[in-house]
């Protein structure tokens, strides 16, 4: 069973680093932190299992089969495993690279991958195309048609579209970065989908940053951070996007780059790693990464006059904030300081909600299981407000709230802090 049966594996470039793989001493301490293991009880759906498979493929013990691909693709890339691993195994990096290998010759679902890649490269990464595509979505979200469709029940039969509808909140106006270099000292990163569907969160972020005494601005010319592409194994595209952002933010003159989306923040803090092999960009990427700071991390170090928000607030960690960036106390402390709020801890607040970028579209069953866990907690604790710090999660919680049958608002951390 030589790997040569799978032409192209392992690709010389972007194969999981054998030193990274070797760091795993298969102690198993990570398995219970893994959502897919929690649901399935199968070690092949655990971090240890996935790493072991990557290693077996790299060592040419087994070919890259459909089953192997399936186990990798069920991974949420939530990095809960990485956060608890005592050996410091860089799981996120291993999995991105393992997926990059599927490009060479995916054992199955080739057309699906190509379609996905096309969408990530030509829609998500192009602000104008994305804007044109999402404008009708925003309109639909607020139109009477939506209520009609919901009541008619036809959405249940529309597959992925119905699932997307369930995740859609009531998006406000888009927020597109238009500021010039030097318009402030703290630059806000606005992202792709976030600036189109979560404009309110960006506006709230700007106000809160100003209230904390910062001169915030959103430099024009920035775009998608590249995380979605990297997670999909399209490292070439991720690098292209990273280089573009590096140029934009270098030109902006901002000392500090505040990111209010956990997934983007995690990816941008790792630009150095992503571009380590590129002599022209490596140092600049490192320098940029060092300037990136999460929204809550930034505020924790500043004097923010306390706002006011009535009700019971359930904070749900975004994986790429809690696990990838190690930030879980700061958002809670900021929320806890709000007048009138009672912070409730729900079980599994730091376990992945199943949104995981585009995962909810690709793996609806597992995503649904994880959402149901959240819904069960919401039903039990009946929070008035659910707060998180990542747009994808926010969408998943919209759906979970409906599933739980409770009346709760889903807010971005910035929106919660913005209330006075």
């Amino acid at each position: 069973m030589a790997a040569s049966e799978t032409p192209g594996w392992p690709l010389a470039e972007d194969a999981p680093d054998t030193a990274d793989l070797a760091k795993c001493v298969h102690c198993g301490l990570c398995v219970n932190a893994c959502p897919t293991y929690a649901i399935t009880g199968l070690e092949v759906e655990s971090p240890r299992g996935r790493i072991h498979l990557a290693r077996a493929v790299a060592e040419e013990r087994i070919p890259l089969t459909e089953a192997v691909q399936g186990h990798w693709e069920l991974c949420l890339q939530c990095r809960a495993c990485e956060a608890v691993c005592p050996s410091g195994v860089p799981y996120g990096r291993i999995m991105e690279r393992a997926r990059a290998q599927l490009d060479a010759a995916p054992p199955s679902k080739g057309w699906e991958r190509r379609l996905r890649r096309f969408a990530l490269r030509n829609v998500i990464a192009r602000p104008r195309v994305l804007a044109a595509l999402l404008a009708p979505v925003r309109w639909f979200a607020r139109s009477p048609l939506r209520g009609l469709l919901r009541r008619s029940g036809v959405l249940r039969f529309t597959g992925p579209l119905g699932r997307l509808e369930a995740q859609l909140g009531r998006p406000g106006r888009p927020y597109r970065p238009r500021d010039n270099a030097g318009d402030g000292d703290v630059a806000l990163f606005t992202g792709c989908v976030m600036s189109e569907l979560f404009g309110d969160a960006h506006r709230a972020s700007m106000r809160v940053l100003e209230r904390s005494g910062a001169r915030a601005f959103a430099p024009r010319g920035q775009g998608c951070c590249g995380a979605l592409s990297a997670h999909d194994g399209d490292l070439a595209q991720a690098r292209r996007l990273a280089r573009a952002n590096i140029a934009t933010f270098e030109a902006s003159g901002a000392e500090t780059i505040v990111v209010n989306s956990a997934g983007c923040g995690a990816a941008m803090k790792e630009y150095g790693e992503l571009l380590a092999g590129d002599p022209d960009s490596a140092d600049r990427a490192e320098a940029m990464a060092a300037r990136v700071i999460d929204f809550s991390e930034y505020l924790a170090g500043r004097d923010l006059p306390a706002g006011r928000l009535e009700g019971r607030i359930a904070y749900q960690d975004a994986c790429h904030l809690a696990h990838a960036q190690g930030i879980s106390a700061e958002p809670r402390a900021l929320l806890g300081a709000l007048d009138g709020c009672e912070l409730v801890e729900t079980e599994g607040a730091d376990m992945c909600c199943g949104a995981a970028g585009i995962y909810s579209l690709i793996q609806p069953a597992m995503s649904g299981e994880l959402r149901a866990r959240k819904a069960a907690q919401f039903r039990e604790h009946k929070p008035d407000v659910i707060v998180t710090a990542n747009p994808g999660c926010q969408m998943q919680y919209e759906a979970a709230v409906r599933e739980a049958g409770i009346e709760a608002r889903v807010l971005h951390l910035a929106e919660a802090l913005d209330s006075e």
Partner: protein
Amino acid sequence: MTVSAGLLQALRDVVGKEHVLHKPEDLLVYELDGTIDRSLPDAVVFPGNTEEVQAVVRACNGFDVPVTPRGAGTGLSGGAVPTRQGVVLATARMRRILDVDPVERTATVEPGVPNIQLSEIAAEHGLFYAPDPSSQKACTIGGNVAENAGGPHCLALGVTTNHVIGMEVVTASGEVEWLGSHGPDPVGYDLRGVFIGSEGTLGIATKVVVRLVPVPDTVVTLLAIFDDVESASETVSAVIGAGLVPAALEMMDRVTLQAAEAGLRCGYPPDAGAVLLIELDGIEEVVRGQVTQARAACNEHGATEIRTATEPAERELLWKGRKGAIGALGRIAPNYYLLDGVVPRSRLVETMGEVARISEGYGFPVANVFHAGDGNLHPCLLFDEREPGTTARVLEAGAAIMRVCVEAGGALTGEHGVGFEKNRFMPWLYSETDLENMRRVRGVFGNEGAFNPCKVLPEGTGCGEMAHQQGALAAAGPDAYV
């Protein structure tokens, strides 16, 4: 392939198709546990309850195929590795908490429940489950029972066997039996005690009744820093000699401290030669007195600094270095081989000297972590397996260290078990008659050698696939050592 289509079908009939794995890719990760031994199973089956466990065991026996139980696979002696292939019986689907009785202070759980979950559930009633292996977030109660697992907090409260009241088991021959009692005082032969620590060779625990203990009023953690291991060891003797029974008494040596500092930034002074962690708990006034005594003992034996913590967050900080120490070793060496030996406390310093001498002779740096209170040493040999021949020499050095422990009047294992890894050392401790008697005990539970084969007792033949550890090691590749 020892599993025939007939057996595969029989297994599917018992547990359902979706709970039997047999594709090569799916089996791969079940070839190992937390240590170096490897062997691929032919099938992995996930029964959901006692009846299914029984039916699986009977089906395998009927087809003459070996069965190996598996919990979370965190074991450190190859216990869950299917040495002679066959079927791995995994308890991952059996993770229900069946009952918590705050009045009787017991809980009844299925074997696949992770250790930590017991304490989490018990916390609602002000109780906890005492044995706390460092792997507690992952390892299962079934695996704990099999290995008679211990942990830092077992010094005062005892190990697994002191906290398991009774259990339901499916024996190797496929009978369902209850061992021990539902209440505290069993009568007759203590078959429960025989089963605990039998490393999955007598049968499969399917329900376990454990004792829960009250969370102590007051807990104080002291971290004392010393110039060398000798002074720290003398302190240990002095603390115990003073009649104190700390909840935990742990030691780390210089190399470990450097690794912990590099990986975890615990704030240890750079020149610290050894650190002692002493945890005292109980009623406030009593604890206060004990803290004074323990501090005095530390000062008397040359502690250069003593830190004290009472709040949970502060205590956690002091424990951070210890809990992450083994993992942090990965940061100063590409590989480490973790040993588990026991010596009488009085021989600790002398044995340490021997360990240092042996590892130096072989040219391996050694890091030491101990459960000092009960003489349980964990020397970790640091090496780089990419250097040709190193692996074989590391094993040799490991064997020499085990020998030293035995000769000092100690034992082959404090808590990780004999498993496959150390079964060949058993004759150092036991006569042929002893070993024969153990084989007979195994026979009582219906195991003539095919149930979790090649574990605990040395087997002359029949473990062909794994015949020599060296072979397994060569196959294991870099970093297969915990």
